[in-house]
């Protein structure tokens, strides 16, 4: 289409016979005004959308402080059976912020190894949040299993998956002893070899590529 090529106007305002054009002018006054108006409008819109968005997204990037909750004297716990303790995990919202953990003292014949791996493992605290979708599991002493009422998840004495839909063992809590009392701290997740990971939400596997598909979050507390 040769005639169409001829219709392309010069990029110089002067050549297009725009009155008052400077020599070498390519951005006309009209174009400049249109661009300025758009920029000012975009700036005004961003001035309220960006802070509002950051305000809503803030909690995603804000690390929660670790809280240690006293759950009673250490004499209440033994190496052979789990004792349920109820404690506040999220302060400020009443009973909603409370959760339950099953606690026992470290037992070489169950946990393997002669002594705890570090200072947080002298007492084992297992979370009751099912690793499938977060329903509360209960410990059935006769079967020595943790059983979830929602979709039939079953875990063994250590919280490892025995059957059902859960994708990883039950989460655990850091524990420490202060003045003869046991304190329960932040939650952490474990893979099928009971290696520690930053706490994940239920339904997120940690074996294989799972730990990369479901990365650790910025908001979870550290001990």
């Amino acid at each position, binding site marked *: 289409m040769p005639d169409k090529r001829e219709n392309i106007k010069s990029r110089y305002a002067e050549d297009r016979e725009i009155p008052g054009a400077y020599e070498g002018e390519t951005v006309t006054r009209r174009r400049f005004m249109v661009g300025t108006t758009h920029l000012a409008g975009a700036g005004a819109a961003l001035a309220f959308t960006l802070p509002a968005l950051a305000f809503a997204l803030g*909690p995603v990037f804000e690390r929660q402080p670790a809280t240690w909750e006293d759950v009673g004297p250490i004499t209440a716990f033994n190496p052979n059976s789990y004792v349920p303790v109820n404690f506040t995990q999220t302060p400020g919202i009443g009973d909603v912020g409370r959760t339950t953990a099953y606690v026992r003292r470290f037992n070489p014949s169950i946990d393997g190894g002669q002594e705890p791996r570090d200072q947080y493992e002298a007492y084992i605290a297992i979370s009751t949040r099912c690793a499938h979708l977060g*329903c509360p599991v209960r410990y059935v002493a006769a079967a020595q299993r943790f059983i979830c009422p929602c979709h039939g998840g079953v875990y063994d004495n250590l919280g490892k998956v025995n059957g059902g839909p859960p994708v990883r063992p039950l989460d655990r809590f850091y524990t420490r002893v202060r003045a003869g009392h046991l304190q329960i701290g932040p939650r952490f997740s474990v893979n099928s070899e009971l290696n520690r990971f930053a706490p994940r939400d239920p339904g997120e596997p940690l074996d294989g590529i799972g730990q990369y598909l479901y990365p650790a*979050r910025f908001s979870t507390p550290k001990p």
Partner: protein
Amino acid sequence: MPRIKLPSKLPSPPPGAVPKSLQPSPGRPQEGNGKKSLKDKVIHDGTEAGTTVVDWVDERTSLSGALRWTLFRKVPKGTNWFYTLGSATLFAFLNQAVTGVFLAMYYDPSPTRAYESIRFVTNEAFLGEFVRGMHKWGSSVMVILIFLHMARVFFFGAYKYPRELNWVIGVTLLILTMTMAFTGYLLPFDQRSYWATIVGVNINGTGAFIGPYLSDFLRAGPDFGATTLSRFYAIHMMLIPGAIAALIGAHLYLVAKLGTTAPPWLKVESEPELREQEV
């Protein structure tokens, strides 16, 4: 083309009810002889124009044209009751909007007060149980109607050219409605809504890579916390209803602009002369 007449005259008041200063002035002498010149007619129409509220508004907005364009459309042969499912969904949405606004007058989105305020609405407020019931059951009705409407559009082939964009808008409305149902489920703040929200947020978290962060955004933190409820309330009350209303407007505009489709069992009837030529 005949103009459709809107009811432009209000009923005249009884004689003597209107003070003399407010009564219309008597007609001009040249009126009433039967024959009118064009000039007289223009003057006459001018004095008659804009005498009612409807005329006054219409003269300044031209709304009657938009109203005619929206309401007096041609519809294809075979239009049947299945075509009312979209309007039914719209009315379900209006029911949710109206009852929701009035429920908000009593509801308190704080973790310690939410359950008590819902208990008050249900057991003590006058007609509270009814209004809350309309909102609660209306949400299920709306979701069911959306799927019926969607099935009608799908099986009648009404999503095809040139109506694809309206299908896309409709699917967006479906997703927004499901989000409304999800966020509204938490608000009574009883055991059922609490655990359903825990499970729902965790399902959402199983999306790879961004799932965990999306869950943090929904809960406003790593666990169900102090501001989760008010966050769900704000999403349920303000963020999504506006988006739904705007998209319903776009949905209806496209329906009015593109028209509706005939049911698929209607055969296209060509003109008899053309039929002869086809042989």
